[in-house]
């Protein structure tokens, strides 16, 4: 009987080694350890043994059973691991194939620029003011210290609806509308479309965008103007950008200035883009002319302010390397999807 147990054990070990499928393993388990299994059959014969042999053989039978069980467990683990490995292998895919298309829209590059600049000024305490595109001559010119026969009126070839109503040539009328509301202090920017009668070509468009800024408060200085715009330039173009303010003339500011930023192409060394100057003109600015304050009902003795304005197409074109303005208005998906 001892011999029988040993045979069962040996056979079991060798059978288990050869099993390669979970199903076979289950069958082997039943055959070895099941109610009608070989080991059970041997144990059933225990009664025939002498009483003193029973505990010895009983123990032996237990050991055999435990060993088979643990071997079965091992074999099961081995088979499961093998099976998983097989499955993983069979599931291998070509990960270099393109992903499934997920439709994704894009913001217009002009909007990206407008939003980015707006966010910079919002962070500095500015609100966004808006005004009409179809504007009164008064707001577009007269209230900005551009009287009827001023050359600036010609320079900005204006689209007229009638003698008093026109398409705004600049976003500056929003300054006047904001001041007229009488709520002080003022810190606003105004991005928007403006109109000038230029034929469409690679660098001109009768419709383009400007962003205007206005600050009016007690004790505002030209130093404050420089400070605000220097912060803006660094936020927009990066910490390394250099700014330069030089005198200029606008009817609605005095003193007036233009702000240049160091050339994006050469960083200020001088190149073809900046015509060797190292700087590129970015915006016009100045201290709000006392006449303009007065016309809008603000006492220039008590309040002062600064204003600035810039063309946005140029900022977008420089940033994205766009060389033809017309692309911005064509709305070709192949263009829009690039931003």
């Amino acid at each position: 009987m001892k011999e029988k147990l040993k045979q069962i054990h040996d056979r079991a070990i060798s059978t288990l080694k050869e099993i390669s499928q979970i199903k076979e393993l289950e069958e082997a388990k039943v055959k070895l350890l099941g109610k009608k299994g070989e080991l059970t059959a041997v144990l059933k014969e225990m009664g025939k043994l002498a009483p003193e042999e029973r505990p010895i053989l009983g123990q032996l039978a237990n050991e055999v059973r435990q060993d088979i069980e643990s071997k079965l467990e091992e074999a099961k683990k081995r088979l499961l691991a093998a099976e998983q490995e097989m499955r993983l292998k069979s599931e291998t895919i070509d990960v270099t194939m393109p992903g499934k298309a997920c439709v994704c829209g894009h913001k217009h590059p002009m909007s990206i620029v407008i939003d980015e600049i707006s966010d910079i000024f919002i962070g500095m305490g500015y609100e966004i003011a808006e005004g009409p595109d179809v504007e009164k001559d008064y707001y577009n010119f007269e209230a900005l210290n551009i009287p009827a026969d001023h050359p600036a009126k010609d320079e900005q070839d204006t689209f007229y609806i009638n003698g008093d109503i026109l398409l705004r040539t600049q976003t500056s009328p929003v300054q006047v509308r904001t001041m007229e509301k009488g709520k002080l202090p003022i810190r606003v920017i105004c991005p928007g479309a403006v109109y000038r009668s230029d034929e469409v070509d690679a660098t001109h468009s009768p419709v383009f965008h400007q962003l205007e800024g206005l600050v009016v408060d007690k004790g505002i200085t030209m130093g404050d103007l420089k400070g605000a715009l220097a912060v803006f330039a660094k936020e927009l173009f990066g910490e390394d950008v250099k700014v330069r303010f030089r005198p200029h003339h606008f009817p609605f500011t005095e003193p007036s200035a233009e702000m240049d930023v160091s050339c994006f192409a050469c960083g200020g060394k001088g190149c073809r883009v900046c015509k060797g100057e190292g700087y590129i003109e970015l915006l016009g600015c100045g201290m709000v002319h006392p006449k303009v304050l007065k016309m809008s009902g603000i006492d220039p003795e008590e309040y002062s302010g600064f204003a600035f304005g810039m063309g946005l197409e140029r900022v977008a074109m420089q940033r994205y390397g766009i060389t033809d303005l017309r692309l911005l208005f064509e709305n070709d998906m192949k263009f829009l999807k690039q931003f």
Partner: protein
Amino acid sequence: MDIPMSWMKEYANVTANLKEFVEAMTMTGSKVEGYTTMGGAIKNVITGQVKAITKHPDADKLVITKIDTGSNELTIVTGAANLKEGDYVPVAVDGAVLADGTEIHTGKLRGVESQGMLCSIQELGFDLHDFPEACEDGIYVFPNAVELGKDVVDVLDLKDDVVEYEITSNRPDCFSVLGIAREAAATYKIPFQYPVIAVKELAGEKASDYISVAIENPQLCPRYAARVVKNVKIEPSPRWMRKRLRAAGVRPINNIVDITNYVMLEMGQPMHAFDIDTIAQRKIIVRNAKEGEQITTLDGNVRNLDTSMLVIADPEKAVAVAGVMGGENSKISEQAEAILFESATFHGSNIRVTAKKLGMRTDASSKYEKGLDPNLALEAVNRAAQLVEMLGAGEVVHGVVDCYPSKRESWSLSYSPQWINGLLGTDISEKEMIEIFERIELKVDKENHTVTVPTFRPDLEGQEDLAEEVARFYGYDKIEPTLAAGTPTVGKRSYSQNITELVKKNMIASGLCEAMTFSFESPKVFEKLNIPSESHLRRVVTISNPLGEDYSIMRTTTLNGMLTSLATNYNRRNDSAGLFEIGKVYLPKAVPVTELPEEIPTLTIGMYGKMDFYDIKGILEQLFEVLGMTEKAEFATEKNIPWMHPGRTASITAEGRQFGYVGELHPQIASNYSIGTKVYIAVLDMPALVEYSNLVNMYQPLPKFPAITRDIAMVVKEAVTVKEIEAVIKKYAGQYLESVTLFDVYQGKQIGEGLKSVAYSITFRASDRTLVDQDVTDAMKEILEGLSKEVQAQLRDK
């Protein structure tokens, strides 16, 4: 404006190098646009002498020359016929560069080696106007012997640095050599030397014996000064004058014309010269043109004048368009014996308008239009007389006929150093300010803190203008940047601006790209869009001076811009396109326009490609969800939009007001735009989205008790809408109804002609208990009866 450095230096002796100078000028307000060196491109062109000329063996039109350049003898082949032995000529030797950048190398011409090239005056960048002695089509031959082997640029004195300035409209005084010299002197704190003007006159006759002047409209002509020159000898002006004119960009003509141009460039005062014999009765009258009056100007064109324009006339005829161009009838001929130099002041904007109307903006008009100082006129005419004398171009008759009814006087302005420092944010001493004022020729009264402004500075009107003068010479770059103190403000977008941003983000999340189109368009779009003739959309804001009909009306619908963009994509073979735009439409309150129109921001979506109506509707439903207005926004069948597909369009309303529509574009309109596929469009009023949006929803407790869901499928007539069915379900479902979800619509043979099958999941839930079967069975019974009664639905067998 181009100003030659050598000319300017005569009045302000700047010693800085050119690069440093242009930067300094830019920083004090005379913006330099660029600078070049006239003659600067020419390299290795030297003087040589023709030693021998022989025929080319293989070419009739070429000759072989031996040229002595002092240190070398060169063989040079040339085609010119004007040479003779002994001539001194410019020689471009091997490696030379001509004025236009052409490089010259030794090479063979018809088999004979040529070690360079002999140059014409054109090849040196000039013409006969500059060097009247030059041969018109041949090699330039020096009129006198020259030292051999010398740089021709030096020998002919070709070189000058020329700086181009951007002059702002407030500084007419800077449109001149003297104006820029004055600024340069102030920039470098060096003396400004005004030219010494002294006129040698003939004794005896007076100018007033020759001519009389009457100004009929002193408003438009504040001053008219005239001098007379007799025994005129027309000839080329001297080289130094021709060189300066050319460097300043003006072509030399003859001594008299050159003098007028020279004075204009130097002093900023345009001048005109008349042949005095052409002036009837020797009487100059400055008057407005007559209705229908015509004049042939010097350029040979007949100009139709109107009564707003000022002319210079004699009692019989107009002889010049004042401040713009002289008349053909009074021009100086070679035979002219006596001439009249006009130095007048005209009203700036009147000249500007006249020049614009006549379509001829001249050097003179562009100077006048800025508004000139009348006090300049006399100095200028004297300067011209001085030059006439100097050049031997004629004899100056004694005296000036000067008609100057009301003299422009200088004015004074008070200043407060404290106020100026307060505005600039600086701490500049009064002493420094005074020093700056004096540099720009303001007379300072230190005691009273006032300055007297010279009449050539009309831009200085108030203390803020003085502040700018202080700032620009103190240095804008020295003003310390500060961050404004004062009352803090909150930076933010308004609610409606936030909604706009949210809409944009949502459109982009839905896969659409943002478009940007023009807000004006052609009135032809109404036909293209099939907009009925009585539609209010045809009432438009019209531009009175458009770029053309295509840009002549402000749009009342955003569709044309969108469809044009889609058509662009379609033409360029983009398989699909999905665009949105938030742009305005402009609706006039009255036509013709008497007040500002209403400007309504509008969201427009346009798409084509693999999609159907429910794709674009889905985009809107998602938008409404994000804006918290799903409950408010209702879609309903809309058959009456002429440019939309009558069976595939829905109106969108909220609180009984229609604020948009969505659907398929009418195929005829798609075809009008040459789009050969189905186009889907949605148009929504932005202010309505702002009004109906609700970004703050109150919390609803999460359900505690389970729901019960029942599915039903029914057959109804095709024309019954899902909206109608849902309304019935909601009406009969009772208090426990939670949701009604459509999950299938089917049409086909099994159902029968004109019918459709519609299937719903209906979910019930109570907030206070678990529903039992009976609750739902009762509700479903009600629903089915309701459906059968109201939409004749038949329950479909499973």
